[in-house]
């Protein structure tokens, strides 16, 4: 296979490969001795240490073999890709960026994931939408599956919201969960204080979250990149600590329970209705089933997410959306064109926060109970991971990444404590394989050719 490789590389290949594998094995040894080699065990209330050097040897051997295979595959790939000294014209530049070149080497290691064309993306979106709509009525559908799908769609919606801030406006926000929390808490409190219905509480929650977005936006106007990330991280923590400590309002760590469940246009999903109220099941003369509420919640979040999607796609094609993207590309040039960066940034923050607030309100009504526990930094990190893994600015990518990131830990439950290891490995693999995200494609907001608008 290495016949097209340069002769020098072929001759020196084996010692170099072995050395590389040995180095990796050495590193694995250093790490494995303390991590795997010793185990604390409790015998008769006395803490003792058990050694497991057999496992260490196994781990080191596995790393050695794995690294060797990886180098082999890499060299094989390199030899393979060198052979056709591509006489074909290079693809239109600009669709690919430098970062992709590094990842291309690894792409041969996994079954090639086709770069999606415009038609494929449209088809995939339609198929996905059809599947999502039909899901509760598919033969293999169950309460567990519908509940899981609801979680996925919540994350899809959060990802689409954060995509406005991170993907379009290029403002790295590590505290997005704060808006999610504000939405959830404001919904729970407003509904309780003013006795509102879900549909009355929802816009209020979004509005309040948008106000929090502006509040965060003002102090960070001058910051970019890493510095912005640090401040937003702090903001997320401030909100969480406030929820934890402002006991008279938020009930502190005990959280708020009895958040009213949504009703189907006034028809509650209950087995037995309070006097004078007709339940959903009674009204439609069907037997009561606890699945009805789950299905309703699922369609509710699906509808919210689809509205979010339509809203952001439309905003993207408006002047404000182009200004967000221009701000991401070059703030100085924006100013030289008469665009006020302050209002553009604030509008991005407020829009993203509002969408997060809607998702939070839904979360509160779905769970019926909220506490600060649900709004930790790991949530922000997961949402950001969904946006980044999906491909910044890509709506379809967010859906794919949300499905992967939410379902993977669920599928991995069989692996017990190795679950998160699997999760981390999958994230690393995606980034190595497709450095710009699953769907690294930017469709122009407007095309001159044929005068039709891009999707």
């Amino acid at each position: 296979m290495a016949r097209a490789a340069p002769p020098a590389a072929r001759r020196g290949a084996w010692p170099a490969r072995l050395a590389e594998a040995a180095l990796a094995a050495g590193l694995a040894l250093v790490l494995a001795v303390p991590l795997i080699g010793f185990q604390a065990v409790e015998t008769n209330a006395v803490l003792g240490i058990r050694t497991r050097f057999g496992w260490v040897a196994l781990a080191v051997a596995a790393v050695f073999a794995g690294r060797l295979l990886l180098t082999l595959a890499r060299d094989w790939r390199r030899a393979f890709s060198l052979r056709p000294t591509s006489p074909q014209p290079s693809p239109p530049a600009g669709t690919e960026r430098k970062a992709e070149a590094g990842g291309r080497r690894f792409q041969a290691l996994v079954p090639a994931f086709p770069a999606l064309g415009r038609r494929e993306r449209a088809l995939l979106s339609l198929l996905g939408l059809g599947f999502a709509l039909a899901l509760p009525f598919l033969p293999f559908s169950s309460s567990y599956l519908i509940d899981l799908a609801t979680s996925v769609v919540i994350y899809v919606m959060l990802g689409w919201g954060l995509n406005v801030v991170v993907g379009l406006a290029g403002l790295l926000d590590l505290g997005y969960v704060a808006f999610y929390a504000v939405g959830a808490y404001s919904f729970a409190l407003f509904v309780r204080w003013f006795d509102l219905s879900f549909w009355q509480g929802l816009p209020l929650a979004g509005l309040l979250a948008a106000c929090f977005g502006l509040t965060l936006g003002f102090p960070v106007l001058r910051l970019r990149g890493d510095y912005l990330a640090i401040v937003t991280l702090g903001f997320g923590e401030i909100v969480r600590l406030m929820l934890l400590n402002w006991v008279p309002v938020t009930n502190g760590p005990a959280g708020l329970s009895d958040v009213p469940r949504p009703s189907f246009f006034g028809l509650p999903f209950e087995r037995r209705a309070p006097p004078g109220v007709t339940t959903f099941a009674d009204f439609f003369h069907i037997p009561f089933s606890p699945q009805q509420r789950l299905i309703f919640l699922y369609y509710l979040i699906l509808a919210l997410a689809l509205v979010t999607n339509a809203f952001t796609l439309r905003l993207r094609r408006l002047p404000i959306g182009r200004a967000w993207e221009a701000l991401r590309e070059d703030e100085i040039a924006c100013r030289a064109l008469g665009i006020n960066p302050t209002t553009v940034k604030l509008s991005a923050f407020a829009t993203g926060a509002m969408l997060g607030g809607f998702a939070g309100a839904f979360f509160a009504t779905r769970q019926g109970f909220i506490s600060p526990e649900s709004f930790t930094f790991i949530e922000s990190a997961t949402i950001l991971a969904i946006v980044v893994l999906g491909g910044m600015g890509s709506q379809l990518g967010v859906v794919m990444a949300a499905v992967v990131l939410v379902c993977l830990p669920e599928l991995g439950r069989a692996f017990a404590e190795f679950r998160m290891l699997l999760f981390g490995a999958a994230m690393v693999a995606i980034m190595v394989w497709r450095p710009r995200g699953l769907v690294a494609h930017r469709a122009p907001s407007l095309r001159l050719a044929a005068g039709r608008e891009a999707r």
Partner: protein
Amino acid sequence: MSAALLEVEHLSMRFGGLLAVDDLSFAARGGEITAIIGPNGAGKTTVFNCLTGFYRASTGRLTLNRGARNFLLERLDGFRIAREAGVARTFQNIRLFAGMTALENLLVAQHVPLMRASLWSVGGLLGLPSFRRAEAQAVARARRWLERIGLVERADDPAGSLPYGAQRRLEIARAMCTEPALLCLDEPAAGLNPRESAELNALLLAIRAEHGIGVLLIEHDMSVVMGISDHVVVLDYGRKIAAGTPEAVRRDPAVIKAYLGEEEEDALPPEVARDLSEGS
């Protein structure tokens, strides 16, 4: 001739102990191309940055007379200078929105009127016909500029993938899409080959003729400066050492001294002599 479009009076810019621009006064007229030249580090780009609000001038007054309204540029925010006073600029190192298409670059330049037409996005979200009309007009304007700079075929390609010369022209077109009163070009011919810089000359002359706006030009390429400018201001160490028509400036001993040093006055390196005599 009309009153000066831009009046720079006693402009100084100090960075700590460094006086980058020292008591500079000059005027630029509408419908004329005014070139600012000078050796490297003479403070030309600093003057531009003061004009366009990226720096706040230490002292001095910058007045832009736009029709009935006067703007004191040293008091305006950077984006207001572009939006209200109508000063557009390009950059020495091109600053296009590289990931966006050429067409989108020209539409972003029309952000201010489009935003108003979309009623700050509300009307745009509702798809009001007035917004659709405004957008179609903006696209038509962008298309005219793309045709003019010969990029209509590549309108939907990312700006970052265009050849260097095309990026320079696109940046000028983007600045022109803001409908400026004064266009400030920071070394537009840098890195262009002779054919491209001849095209640039033609473009700038056409802009002056058709739009009647003032053009302020920083340039090292003497074929551009001498070929198209009506008025030349020469800076050295932040001070104005000469001003006048290209012919007058070329013969000015102070200019020759600044560019070539005193002793070598009679022994010009051949390429410099050629540069200086070009375009006359």
